[in-house]
């Protein structure tokens, strides 16, 4: 057994400060284990949101040593324990208390995106025929666990606070899953350009780097959506070709 120091943010919307807690750590522990141990031994009132402890519920999102991470998936042996490990809440959302933030803005954003609008069924029994290749293309996007780490790290939200104009990487992934869905008939390209602010993304790929599900957010979702916007709004040649094709 050895010990490590964890520098944890304590406070609420009115303010707060980092507090140091030293606790024993052992092989196989993750950051969330250490937080629970500190909660049990030294700080019973420490607020932390968690649920599955398996990287699938997306509840325990926080910033560990400044990097947005799921606490339950961050092993202590991946961190330098010779110095205090900083644990703080996500910076992009309003703080409720300690490590817990109010992520409800995300759910409101989701309501603004046009819902799935399937074409008429292919068969009389009301079913569709879809090829596996086309299903797999959007399947990656459906791995999202809505941990909102990508929203947290995106500097458009984090540093520029453009919450009113920009829906963030999570919802570009969501839009891509619908927009590239082979059965869907709705057109979201205009919304992407005008209301959802895809043009604000400057492709820093921070969202891709922090995604615990390893979704290739920038290359497979955001850039293809940007290209669809270019088709509609900035490429006269494509427009002309479409006119000729009818």
């Amino acid at each position, binding site marked *: 057994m050895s010990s490590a120091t964890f520098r944890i943010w304590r406070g609420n*919307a009115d303010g707060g400060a980092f507090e140091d807690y030293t606790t024993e750590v052992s092989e196989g522990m993750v950051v969330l284990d250490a937080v629970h141990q500190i909660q049990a031994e030294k700080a019973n009132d420490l607020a932390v949101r968690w649920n599955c402890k398996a990287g699938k519920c997306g509840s325990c999102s926080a*910033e560990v*040593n*400044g*990097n*947005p991470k799921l606490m339950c998936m961050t092993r202590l042996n991946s961190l330098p324990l010779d110095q205090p490990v*900083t644990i*703080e*809440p996500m*910076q*992009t*959302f*309003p*703080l409720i208390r300690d490590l817990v933030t*109010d992520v*409800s803005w995300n759910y*409101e*954003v989701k*309501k*603004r995106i046009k819902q799935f609008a399937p074409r008429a069924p292919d068969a009389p029994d009301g079913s569709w025929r879809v*090829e*596996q*290749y*086309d299903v797999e*293309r959007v399947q990656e996007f459906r791995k999202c666990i809505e941990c909102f780490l990508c929203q947290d*790290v995106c*500097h458009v939200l984090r*540093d*520029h*606070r*453009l*919450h*009113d104009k920009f829906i963030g990487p999570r919802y570009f992934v969501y839009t891509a899953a619908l927009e*590239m*869905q*082979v059965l*869907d008939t709705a057109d979201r390209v205009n919304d992407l350009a005008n209301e959802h*602010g895809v*043009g*604000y*993304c*400057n*492709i*820093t*790929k*921070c969202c891709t*780097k*922090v995604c615990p599900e390893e979704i290739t957010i*920038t*290359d497979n979702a955001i*850039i*293809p959506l*940007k*290209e*669809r*916007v*270019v*088709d509609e709004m*900035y*490429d006269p040649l494509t427009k002309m070709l479409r006119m000729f094709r009818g």
Partner: protein
Amino acid sequence: MEQVHRVQIVAPVRGWGQTTRPDAWWLQPLVVFLGLSTAIGYMTWAAFQGEFYHFGPYLSPLYSPELLGGSPHSLFGPQPAWWPGFLPFSPAFLILWAPAGFRVTCYYYRGAYYKAFWADPPSCSVGEPRSTFLGENSFPLIVQNIHRYFMYLALLFLVFLTYDVWNALWFENAATGVVSFGIGVGTLVLALNVVLLGSYCFGCHSLRHLVGGRHDRIAGLAVQRSCYDCVSGFNRRHMLYAWMSLAWVTFSDVYVRLCAMGIWTDFRLL
């Protein structure tokens, strides 16, 4: 359309360089800054030289295609007489804007130089120097949407560079004037340049979109599906090929230049 739910964002925005990251977050943008600055600096210098850009069957890729110029590789003759005397002339001026435009508007490079040159952001979850942000949503950066047009030009340039490799296989005997097949180190340098530039161009995000990505249903389009898979394969290593091709195109010019200046001997392998 439902009204946006406004939430009060209470955490203060962090200032320039502020972060709780203990790692060397500044290292990657610094390397990108130095790498791109070196390449831009060298290529600008090389473009202004206007000489030592060809040697035997070799033509520097920074000068290819040579539309107008004094070398045997020139497609349409020498420098035109009407070129204003007060303006410096180099065959590179006529063409270098196209590959430069392709790289400047490239999705990978955009993300890299916004961080390294504009600190927007300096690195992930590190505070920025400015509070205003327009992104690529309005002028000037909305112009980045022109990328696919530069991609068309880049593909055309690949054809010329491949033709240069073909030319680099035919050596003239200085004494007899007889042209014969051969392979020199320079031939391999120029050939590898085409391979790396091709790997970079064929992984272009715009190309990926145009060859198939724009369709929701790709499975039923056999040719487009194959093209999409192929471009996607290159696209997964787009960053790697972007850097390798940039370094090698710079080296290719250095190689031809050193040979032309008589500083380096081009060894014949065949």
